[in-house]
């Protein structure tokens, strides 16, 4: 990281979007720095929803969105840490 980061205040995260979340946000990934009071997946979704109209559309029904932190499933109350890879996606439909 070139820019100095106060970890108590801003948490650099890599956020990934899949399927219709990506379509609505308009990108497949982004680096974000939410404020220090954003400590859980649920709080991150609420914060992301305010970043653009597309984000708002993507996160308007957080209950149906699945999340993974560092490629393992995580619930809305899971804690996020600086440097985490946080992915949001709809319920899976493979197989």
């Amino acid at each position, binding site marked *: 990281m070139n820019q100095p980061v106060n970890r108590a205040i801003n948490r650099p995260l890599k956020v*990934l979007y*899949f*399927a*219709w979340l990506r379509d609505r946000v308009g990108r497949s990934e982004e680096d974000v720095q939410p404020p220090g009071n954003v400590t859980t997946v649920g709080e991150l979704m609420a914060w992301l929803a305010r970043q653009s109209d597309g984000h708002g559309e993507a996160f308007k029904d957080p209950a149906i969105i699945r999340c*993974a932190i560092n*490629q*393992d*499933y995580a619930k809305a109350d899971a804690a996020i840490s600086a440097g985490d890879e946080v*992915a949001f*996606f*709809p*319920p*899976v*439909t*493979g*197989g």
Partner: protein
Amino acid sequence: MIKVQAEDFDVGAELAALSRGRAEVGAVASFIGLVRDVAGPGELSAMTLEHYPGMTERQLEQLEGEALDRWPLDKVLIIHRYGRLLPGDQIVLCAATSSHREAAFEACAFLMDWLKTKAPFWKLEEVDGKSNWVAARQDDDAAAARWQTDTPKSK
């Protein structure tokens, strides 16, 4: 063994390799998933499978390990494709080998139920020139849930 790939797979060769030289394997249960042309009123022209590289392999390896823990299996195979597929194309192959046919059957059904609800794949259907993300089936959640309470019958 886990394979996540864009290329098609050869079912006969994959299943033969799974039991080759394994003297105690008498049972090979397998499942092939194909792209169906049943998208409702229109006709399905193609389906694109998106996935989450890295997490997919991680989830499928955990699934493989869990099947090997729960049943007396020799080997587990999961091959899942991604990318653009046409009706009739192969999507997935799951197989379990064992000396007991009940273990092989149950493990194979378990693999598919969990794969349907945990492996990070998403289907985008192209129907009548429009693209639609396929919605998850509640049936699949119910099918996966039975493995959380049931004790395997054949351990």
